[in-house]
């Protein structure tokens, strides 16, 4: 494509030059081409004496050597996201910087050629941490590269890091810290201190982005003012006017239990209208939902802290009643470590202070308590300022979308599992799941679409897919099936699904039966763990069907896992490795590699939580 353009319109180039360009850029990603265009613009705007020959023929060192002669510092926003927050921030920042010119680039670490790093001039890293301090999948290659033997000299690079995390985990913002420290160790110059954001990252992130904008602008101001800005290929998808912080106030159409009477859990099917929002999604994407705390929970909180809910408070420059702010703006379910610490200090409670001192105990405490329990257990007199100062801001929850727009037009469907922890005969519900499960028809729900390009149907509808999920992990597969049904595909579809009981917990049973009957669903294997004396899970079914499953993989099937991260996904992966090893007749290292290959060629995708 690029080469054709060169041939047709770039008459100043010789055939030989075109061939060389083709050879050099033919296998570059859009991202890389984008970068290169900035680079060429820089050459053109700068010394001008450089020949194209020099640029295209040179190896990386040559390119690097040209850097100092550039008049405007190239700026790359490098991000890696697990749930989409880092990406959203990076895109936002990119939108802010874009008017400054073509030297501003946005890159997902997953698509970024690590060896380019040493050629960068300014790098702004936005990265999240997940699990126990692990980098997001997308950041893994770059992370490994930086900490590996081939780590480059970054002494020409300036950088800053915004780290996202969740302070209820022990290794809070670990990945951001890793990048920050490593960049520095490799000689890069820190432009400003790293900022570690908790789940309510909004204001801190805003401040950090402000610093970046200031830095880039001042750098630009010191550069030659005569420079033209050129239009360039945009790598950002069209952004709907509704996004995370400007969510669409959607109408809820249906909230309907999916689990039958007598089920040990409540799972609901939720349908929401996206009509007139301009929001669109693809199967595999997620819907972000801003929850509202239940009024009874707000009443409980107000009662225990002894504050009047009618008093006015100001949140984000808006004045409202305290009880309204607690419904909409503050996190009243999940506890932050800071809140525990505050309560521990203010109450002077020795045992709580001991808990705060010991990270693992603190984590356990956070996991097993909600805000209201902490407040009730350690009664304090709270001022409004103290309360609002200590409570985290509420954050949206992401749900894997359970529909395809090919089938449901401007609706979006979710499969919501009610978080319902019972302690001392009291129920403690998840904020968003309760909000959605109890929502009534016509109620407004603030939503946005979170793209997930790492959980997508194969482009080719004739490719087989194997869908493995447990519980609400079935959601995206319903979307997949709707999509494949609507666009008339030939690929075979195989579902592995697990839940406690057949009678009550076979989510979307009638639909799966129908798809099986129509032939769209080729195979289904079900694991109802508690229907027999010994527990049977999806990982057991995978082993049971190992031979057939391996054949499907050998024939090019794509593999998906969705659902619980800690138990299901790990056990399934281990079963997969066993199956691959057994039916390939090779050892476990081979199986690891096999799965790794699948992962790299986007044939093995996970949406786990």
């Amino acid at each position, binding site marked *: 494509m690029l080469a054709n353009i060169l041939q047709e319109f770039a008459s100043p180039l010789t055939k030989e030059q075109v061939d060389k360009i083709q050879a050099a850029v033919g296998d570059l990603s859009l991202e890389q081409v984008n970068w290169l265009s900035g680079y060429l613009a820089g050459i053109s705007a700068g010394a001008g004496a450089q020949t194209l020959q020099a640029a295209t023929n040179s190896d990386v060192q040559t390119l690097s050597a040209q850097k100092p002669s550039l008049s405007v510092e190239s700026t790359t926003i490098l991000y890696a996201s697990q749930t989409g927050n880092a990406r959203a921030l990076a895109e936002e920042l990119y939108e802010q910087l874009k008017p400054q010119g073509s030297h501003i680039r946005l890159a997902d670490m997953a698509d970024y050629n690590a060896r380019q790093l040493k050629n960068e001039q300014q790098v702004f890293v936005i990265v999240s941490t997940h699990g126990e301090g692990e980098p997001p999948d997308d950041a893994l290659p770059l992370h490994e590269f930086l900490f590996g033997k081939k780590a480059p000299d970054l002494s020409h690079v300036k950088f800053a890091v915004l780290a996202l995390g969740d302070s209820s985990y022990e290794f809070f913002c670990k990945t951001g810290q890793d990048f920050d420290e490593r960049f520095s160790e490799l000689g890069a110059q820190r432009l400003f201190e790293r900022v570690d954001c908790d789940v309510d990252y909004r204001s801190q992130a805003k401040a950090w982005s402000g610093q970046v904008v200031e830095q880039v602008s001042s750098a630009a101001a010191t550069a030659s003012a005569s420079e033209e800005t050129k239009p360039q290929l945009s790598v950002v998808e069209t952004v709907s006017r509704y996004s995370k912080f400007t969510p669409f106030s959607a109408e809820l159409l249906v909230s*309907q*239990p*999916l*689990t*039958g*009477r007598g089920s040990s859990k409540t799972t609901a*099917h939720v349908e929401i209208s996206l009509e007139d929002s301009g929001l669109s999604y693809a199967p595999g994407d997620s819907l972000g939902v801003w929850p509202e705390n239940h009024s009874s929970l707000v009443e409980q909180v107000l009662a225990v802290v002894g504050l009047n809910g009618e008093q006015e408070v100001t949140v984000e420059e808006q004045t409202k009643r305290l009880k309204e702010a607690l419904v909409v703006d503050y996190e009243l379910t999940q506890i932050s470590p800071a809140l525990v610490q505050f309560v521990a200090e203010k109450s002077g409670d020795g045992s709580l202070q001991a808990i705060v001192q010991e990270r693992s105990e603190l984590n356990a405490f956070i996991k097993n308590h909600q805000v209201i329990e902490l407040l009730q257990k350690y009664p304090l007199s709270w001022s409004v300022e103290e309360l609002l100062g200590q409570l985290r801001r509420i954050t949206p929850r992401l749900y894997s979308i359970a529909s395809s727009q090919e089938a449901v037009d401007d609706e979006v469907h979710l499969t919501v599992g009610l978080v319902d922890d019972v302690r001392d005969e009291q129920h403690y519900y998840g904020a968003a799941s309760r909000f959605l499960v109890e929502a009534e028809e016509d109620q407004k729900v603030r939503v946005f679409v979170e793209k997930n390009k790492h959980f997508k149907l194969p482009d080719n509808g004739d490719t087989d897919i194997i869908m493995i999920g447990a519980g609400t992990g079935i959601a995206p597969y319903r979307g997949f099936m709707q999509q494949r049904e609507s666009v008339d595909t030939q690929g075979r579809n195989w579902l592995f699904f697990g839940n406690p009981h*057949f*009678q*009550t917990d*076979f*989510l*979307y*049973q*009638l*639909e*799966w*039966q129908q798809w*099986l009957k129509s032939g769209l669903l080729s195979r*289904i*294997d*079900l694991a109802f763990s508690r*229907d*027999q004396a010994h527990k049977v899970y999806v990982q057991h079914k995978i082993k049971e069907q190992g031979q057939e499953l391996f054949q499907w993989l050998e024939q090019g099937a794509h593999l998906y896992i969705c659902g619980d991260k800690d138990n299901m996904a790990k056990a399934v992966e281990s079963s997969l490795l066993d199956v691959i090893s057994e039916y390939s007749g090779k050892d476990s290292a081979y199986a690891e590699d096999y799965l790794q290959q699948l992962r790299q060629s986007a044939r093995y995708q996970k949406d786990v939580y």
Partner: protein
Amino acid sequence: MSDTKTFSLTKEQVQSLNPVEGIKDKSQHLRGSIAQSLANPVTGAVAADDTQLIKFHGIYQQDDRDLRNERRKQKLEPAYSFMLRARVPGGICSPAQWLAMDRIANEFGNDTLRLTTRQAFQLHGIIKNNLRPTMQSMKQVMLDSIAACGDVNRNVMCNPNPVESKVHKEVYDWAARISEHLLPKTQAYYEIWLNGDKVDTNQEKEPIYSKHYLPRKFKTVVAIPPYNDVDVFAHDLGFIAIIQNGRLAGFNVTVGGGMGMSHGDTETYPRAADVIGFCFPQQVLAVAEQVVKIQRDFGNREVRKQARFKYTIATRGIDWFKQELNDRLGWKLLPNQPYEFISNSDRYGWIKGYDGRWNLNLYIENGRIADHPDWPLMSGLREVAKIHDGDFRITPNQNLIIAGISEQNKAQVEALVEQYRLNTGEEVSNIRRHGMACVSLPTCTLAMAESERYMPTFLDKMESLLQQHGLESQPITIRMTGCPNGCARPYLAEIGLVGKGPGKYNLFLGAGHHGERLGVVYRDNIGEQEILRVLDQLFAQYVAQRESDEKFGDFIVRKGIVSPTATPQDFHFELQHQAAV
């Protein structure tokens, strides 16, 4: 037996018959795809054709109809489960068998046992995966469900009362022998449910039934006068024991009875059996076999609603039938012997038998054995079973006799009866003692109106109504069903209520008190208020105008409130209405 007739249908013939005939035809002696259906993990149901075949194995597919709509919205299939009917010839089971059924009900069923109007156990709410374990557990105590349903001869009933004489035991033995003799010979049951070895189905023979079995279900009973608790006239084939000088002389044979009908289908109707002659005990199996074979050969296989034996007889005439039977037997039945029935209800409470052992006839409301919060019936019977040295007898009125209690065990049983508040029927009102209701909603797929769940509260109202008229000591039989198929034999009750729609019943009156005459439909599609209003008026009339000892049903007929015509218009209100116009 001289008869060597066999029965077969060609492919072309089968195609012209009702669809169930086709299913039987290709079922390979009732196997169908039951095994595959059991293995299908996606549904709790069996394949459509298999729903017909499993009946022959004693199982009905049902679903909780209360939940149907709710589950549809939950995108779940109906809450399928299965009703399993155990074959209990004569309703007699041992304490070990009782304990096994109790355990099975609590492990695999819905924690209740249902005693049926045909002296069988019913287990409800068994999910598909538990069917095999259920059958296997039953097998351990020598119980099965073969032919408890389906187009074959079903459980053979017999008067269970053990008190009279040792002749009763002899009669019961004949009932058990008839049951065994008419069992299908296919090994499908063992193969599918009990992990039996696979047999070559081409070699398998059904000498009595043939591969198409009967056109429709077939019910056989044995009555011992003066008690007609089995309702001998309500069944396809009956034997009335003739006891002379303390010895079993033989049996009067009855044929062509049946309860079922369909609302609005005037070609369908209940029919009381004809008494066609007498045979000696040794001839019973031959008679039973030939009657079954005649129905096999002449029953209507085109229209399933006309397939019962009663229609074969009604269509061809009783004389034709007698001739056909005599021809096939190679000998003639002797003339009917005299007999007298006095009741089709149970005798409650303690009765000492001829053998010096004790029998306790318990009142079991609607035949349902369950633990109620204030009334642990199921637990009580379990405790009795643990110490009992006799047997248990399910009565045709859905009650239970703890039978053959030894003198030394009596006190212990009495103590348990008191401890668990088991109902000996003595405190129960007359109307309740003479009442019966079928299972109906929520499990029965045929149900149109409530029955078992509604009967108790309806009887509360009947009790006060009867009290107002001073009729509380008058025995009146009352039976309710949720549909017109007649499981509780409502057409043989002096007051019969047959469900037509939610809360609506057809009211039948005029039946004989001991089951000798069918009732006639008196009111169509009425609710509780109207039923009670109508009965209020009739009771007033009855009290004022009855002759001494005149039964309510007889009074209704004598006064011409209903006039049995022995035609379909007795049962179809619309026919009466047309006649009146």
